[in-house]
């Protein structure tokens, strides 16, 4: 019985994302479903342009939540990711309050009493008022929950990972002067990585590990269909088949889903109804981003078109 409910929920995820124009494979849908059910972040790995960031956007749109994005880069630290003290505001307030100091201390007869009174005010400057929340803290403070996208975590330093651990496992951060800030509603956390560097085990252990590779032909056709509605079915099949052939080549950068979509749009703009050598050669630069790749692929174009057409007979 429980399984029944569960399987419909995975489907619910699938259709919910599809309504946002994100065609998810079953694995992706399962990952999203599980991350909600057992409250775990998802670490998404895979080549560039297969829709890792899009996934976070689609989830946010589907569930009507705010998306907070933290773009990682080398040298990112807690002051930029978590919180920072508003130094300027603190200084300004000190200057303004200088005059008030006399009033505060006015009642004190001895130096000791004055010090005691000062201590009471000491903590004012390190209070919530003077904290500038950065994306991570903002995400915890959203009352309705949010989707927190930590993009390209592999670009950040290893220390930054350790900073994330507390948030990822308990959805809370500890600010030394203030104490622990816990999430009101645990955010849905998506981390993406291009595997530029190996992530630490501690981080991986806290996440569901989802690998998004290049989609299967059918799935990619559906993705193109949902993103580029005007494209004819024959052309769609041919171009996806063609792209799958291109991916079998040894290229510097293989075309990924975002390139397929771009190409489909270009083909629609050019009012193509089916692939031919001429039009492919003219638009190859949409698919391939390196001159060397284009040169490598160009001689194969005719054979690939033929192959793509042939496979469609049975597909």
């Amino acid at each position, binding site marked *: 019985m*429980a*399984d*029944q409910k*569960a*399987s419909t929920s*995975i489907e619910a995820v699938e259709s919910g994302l599809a309504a946002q124009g994100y065609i998810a494979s*079953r*694995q992706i849908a*399962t*990952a999203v*479903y*599980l991350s909600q*059910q*057992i409250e*775990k972040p998802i670490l998404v*790995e895979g080549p560039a342009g297969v829709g890792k960031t899009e996934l976070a956007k689609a989830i946010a749109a589907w569930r009507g939540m705010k998306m907070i994005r933290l773009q990682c880069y*080398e*040298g990112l*630290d807690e002051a930029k990711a978590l919180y920072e003290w508003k*130094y300027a505001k603190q*200084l300004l307030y000190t200057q303004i309050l200088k005059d008030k100091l006399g009033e505060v201390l006015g009642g004190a007869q001895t130096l000791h009493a004055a010090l005691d009174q000062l201590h009471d005010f000491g903590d004012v400057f390190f209070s919530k008022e003077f904290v500038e929340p950065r994306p991570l803290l903002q995400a915890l403070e959203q009352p309705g929950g949010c989707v927190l996208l930590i993009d390209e975590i592999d670009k950040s*330093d*290893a*220390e930054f990972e350790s900073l994330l651990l507390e948030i990822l496992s308990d959805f809370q951060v500890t600010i030394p002067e203030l104490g622990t800030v816990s999430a009101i509603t645990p955010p849905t956390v998506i981390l993406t990585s291009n595997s530029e560097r190996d992530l630490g*085990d501690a981080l*991986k*252990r806290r996440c*569901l*590990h*989802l*690998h998004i590779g290049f989609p299967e032909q059918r799935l990619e056709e559906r993705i193109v269909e949902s993103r580029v509605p005007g494209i004819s079915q024959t052309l769609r099949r041919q171009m996806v088949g063609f792209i799958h052939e291109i991916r079998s080549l040894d290229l510097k950068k293989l075309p990924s889903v975002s390139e397929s979509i771009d190409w489909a749009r270009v083909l629609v703009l050019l009012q193509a109804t089916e692939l031919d050598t001429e039009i492919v050669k003219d638009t190859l630069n949409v698919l391939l981003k390196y001159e060397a790749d284009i040169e490598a692929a160009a001689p194969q174009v005719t054979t690939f078109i033929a192959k793509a057409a042939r496979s469609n007979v049975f597909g």
Partner: protein
Amino acid sequence: MRENLHRFFRAARGVGVHVSPAESIDAMRAVAKVGISDRAVLRDALLLTLAKSQDEKLALGDCFDLFFSQPEPRQDQPEAASDGDAGKGEDQPPSSGSASEAGEGQPAEGLGPLAQMLLSQDRNAVAAAIASASGAASLSDIRYSTQRGIFSSRILDAMGLQRLRDDLDQLTAANPALAERLRAALDALREAVRETVSQGLALYAREEAENLRNEILRNAPLARIERRQVAEMRALIRQIARRLRERYSKPRKRQRRGHLDVRRTLRRNAAWGGVPFLTAWKRKHRDRPKIVALCDVSGSVAQVSDFFLLLIHSLHEVVDGVRSFAFSSHLIEVSDILEAKSPEEAMAEIMSKVGFGSSDYGSSLGDFEKDFMGALTPQTTVIVLGDARSNNLDPRADILRRISERSKRLVWLNPEGRLAWGFGDSEMPRYGTFCTVVRQCATAQQLERAVSDIVATYQ
């Protein structure tokens, strides 16, 4: 199912996927949510929670397919399969009852449940019985291929082989034709059980077998590694190097600026009444690790120097500021080669330049003093890898003394045992007096410990 999942975790560890208790709890929770009826979803859920990389996903996927290709031990009829002694002949299980009518209408009264099941030729029932019997025989405990026989017979016993034998004896007299059929079925059963055990071995024993082999390799003397083991040994050393790297490597770039140094800021701005025009920042100080490695690549240590070089190569990856030198009769710097090339290429190049000669420690140390003495600072750790056999040439221990005086530590790693030091042309005792540490370093394990100690002092 819980039991089954635990067995799967064990199998997963076998294929090299690290399943910690925390991960197994996650997997359990995930499985509780998605249920077990849809195998594809179950597979996805386990892959998502357990695997931590694409490689692990592939391995785990294969493992899943292999694991769940076995029928699950069924809960509803373990009695029928496992205790063959009870007089179950009367209340026959429904499957065998219906099938025995189909099976040529032979009378099957008075036979044990196993015999009935075999004669009924109900393949599903037999498979389920094998599965539950292998559960009873705790097949998941199998570790070594030599245990195959014992587990096979345990499973057969659990299925009621004893009773079947009695039945066979009885039938041979009463109904030879039926006995013949039963015997053929028993042979087929034995084969099926053997297959199940082999599969179990493939699933559960991989981890142990690998651990055992690695353990043996780890402790095997490097110099006496057989040719067929060299590749495995290299893989092991590479694994050690990777572990060292994971444990000790630090990001290359680090921010030098730290937090605001309040004390210095206030003092610096005292002239402006404490209004901080100039800020002062704390700086992070870090010792620059300095390691100088001298590696003997002469003929007498040829077997070992391969591994030494491999490890030095990984040292270059782990810490900054390593300079490496290789020598047999003369000494050259090999830092650039090790930095720029893959281990295999680097080793081949180094060996072609200075390798396999007869060792002359004296002249090599002389080369070092002449050209590279300036590389040594009071922070440097010098590692010498070699057997200290100098072919009865002048050992020039005085140079080693000067090296020792200029550096922080001098570590000598010797592939020979302590017993051999000082005998023949070994100059180890003479060199040893100037070394901070002298260690025997003949096995992969000793090598790992030595290097780990050296690197750890810099963290």
